């Protein structure tokens, strides 16, 4: 059984498991996407953000 067929038979075939797959997929996608874009944004703005200068004013936590 190919991977696609396995996926179809076990997950996408029933509405219950399909809905569950959407919800968990959304959760993990959003976490991953947020972390990726946050990382990209702080790379673009390296040295300018508050977290880059915070160590000058606050004792290390």
């Amino acid at each position: 059984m190919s991977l696609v067929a396995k996926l179809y038979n076990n997950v996408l075939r029933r509405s219950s498991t399909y809905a569950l797959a959407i919800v968990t997929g959304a959760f993990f996608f959003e976490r991953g996407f947020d972390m990726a874009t946050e990382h990209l944004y702080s790379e673009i703005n390296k040295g300018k953000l508050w977290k880059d200068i915070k160590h000058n004013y606050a004792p290390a936590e």
Partner: protein
Amino acid sequence: MAGVAGKFVKSGLLRVQSNGIIQQSHLSTLRELSVGKKAGLVVVGSLIGGAAGLAYTLDQSVKASGLDLHAPHFPWSHNGMFSSLDHASIRRGYEVYKQVCSACHSMKYLAYRNLIDVSHTEEEAKEEAASIQVTDGPNEEGLMFQRPGKLSDRFPSPYPNEEAARNANNGALPPDLTYITAARHGGEDYLFSLLTGYTDPPGGITLRDGLYYNPYFPGGAIGMAQALYNELIEYSDGTPATASQMAKDVATFLKWAAEPEHDDRKKMALKALMLFSFLISVSYYWKRHKWSVLKTRKIVYKPKSE
């Protein structure tokens, strides 16, 4: 026989007709309009275009674009589409505001808590707030009393009301600076140019007492004297405090004050553009997929063969 007839009709449908109308052009609704209606549409279109042009010209004509100098565009580090504000600069700008500008200008919509995790730590913001005295009350005896500031307190205003501010400043009102970059044409470019643009008045212009010449200020005569001079203050991070450095920092600080959502907004733009460009390509593929049946079908008239 039927096969031959079908072939003939099919090839006729596939051939581009001699009058140049291809089948798909029948989908256009404009074709069915009469000449008069088409002419009417053209007239309406040109009227709307003309009215827009007129409105634009009239709007330009009432702008005071005579002798005042427009600020050039400066290469701010937050100019880019995804560029955040320079937070070290915001912090220095706060020092400039506190030690120079706040003598006359209020920032009454900004509270000390707003500084937390932008330019100051929570402890520092508490210290800053505690250095001012706030009137609070009434207490149990019904009296107002003074207490040190808290994080939730707004920045103190130098004057109790507008009349007092005008009275102390030769009749000129120092504007509240909270939203000043949003409230002036040119924003932070204008502020920087204004703060560094003081000159002697050119020949032929005499100013009343208490007015100063600044080519960037509409009208040229401004009630505020030049405020920033080299080495006027000392930055806590050791940056040389030249007049242009202070002007740049305070303009960045005021940009943040007017648009505190600036950094989040640009981060959101980054996320939205990435996600929506993906979704648009998916929906484009989906549309092509769904329409492929309609786009490739051919309707063939097949006469009943004997």
